[in-house]
């Protein structure tokens, strides 16, 4: 699976970082940094939680 960020919807609130810190980090400028685009089997639950926790529905997982 791969993480896709909708940059128009994303406002850098960082809830994805709280759910999956290995994959997401908000930078000093407020822009979301995707640390790792690929989601392995063992990270899938965290990544899905990140998608669900986004208040602006800016994240998607695609295969």
């Amino acid at each position, binding site marked *: 699976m791969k993480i896709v960020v909708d940059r128009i919807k994303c406002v850098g*609130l*960082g809830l994805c970082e709280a759910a999956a*810190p290995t994959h997401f*980090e*908000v*930078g000093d400028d*407020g822009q979301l940094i995707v640390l790792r685009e690929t989601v392995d089997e063992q990270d899938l639950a965290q990544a899905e939680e990140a998608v*669900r*926790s986004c*208040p602006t529905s800016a994240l998607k997982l695609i295969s």
Partner: protein
Amino acid sequence: MSAPVVSKRLVIVGASLAGLRAAEGARASGFTGEIVLIGAEEHLPYDRPPLSKQYLGDAEIPYLRDPDSYVHELNVRAVLGNPVTALRPDEKAVVVNGESISYDSLVIATGAAPRELPGYSEIPGVVTLRNLEDTHSLRRALDATHNITIVGAGIIGAEIATAARKRGCEVTVIEATHYPLERAVGREMGLVLSQMHPRNGTDLRCGVTLAELRTEGEGGKVSSVVLSDGSEIKTDLLLVSIGVVPTTSWLKDSGIELHPDGSIACDEYLKTSLDDVYAAGDAISWPNAHTGRTGRLETWTSANEQGAIAGRNAAGVEDALAYSTVPYFWSDWYGHRIQFAGTAHDAEPEVVIGGYEEEKFVVLYRSGDHVVGALAVNEPAKIMKDRRRIQQRSTWAEAVEHYKELGRKLALIQQETV
């Protein structure tokens, strides 16, 4: 071992964030039975934070999920446009529009409604903000308004003040206490944040209440307000944002346990006092194991998470999960991002990076030897790391050392650039 008991029909009352997440949470746990989602509004679940933020500017309806996906992906039947009027636990049914809908398990997510000023709500020009229709009428009203008075200097009041200033309105915010935002961020930081109002041209008046509302013309529209200190302010629009009341009056004959504030009493599994009835979102109080306190938490994040857990637990396919959280909320005022994690209750705030003048800083809250809260203004990269430290119950020394280290690094970078 998971219990093999699977309820056949899950009914969810409240078609908003927590209600939708309950449906999704039930499905994610493997629930294959019927799901009925009942909403008082005509709309499928949409997101509320934008209503006082972007959407008040101009944006599309912020639906939480593709409307087509309810039937096809989620297999949910939505019953919209009428509020549920009663819960009859003996019959295991709820009543909508005079019709009884039975449940095997139930999730209540009816949220909360704005508290009103008694005697004022019917007067033209007096408004509150909670749903999509409110936003539409507020947007239209703002276009035709020059002077707006906002009662209540909380989060929503400040966001609407922001939007109104952006449209060129003269804005007055009145606050009954001397300490705006005390419950959210504590006394001291409430005063610091409130300074954003005068700096951005909003007239903030604390320690005054509304004494009289004057109207004029046909229909008696608002023309001015008189405050308790005797001053009169010209006003075309009076927005009341003095908090919310849980939407639970429909439950009063059900026998469900309610707290004195009207919220539904839940345990850590978000189960109510009634069998097979769970609840989530702004309408509930529950014991948060992280903070050790029982109460309401009116945030997007808690509604999101509670909804998923209540849905899962109500579905009963997998073992029940308890819910605890480090509270988190955000707000945007006059172009500034405000983020808060944890609690300010009984805690001492201290600036650990930046300063008030720059309007860019992080304040940590200390209770005993631990960091229990964090407030970040225009420091979006910091807050979730602080939230994690709060979650992990970091000591105060550890949390402060992190910022000292960061300060040293920043000083080095500055030296190099000079």
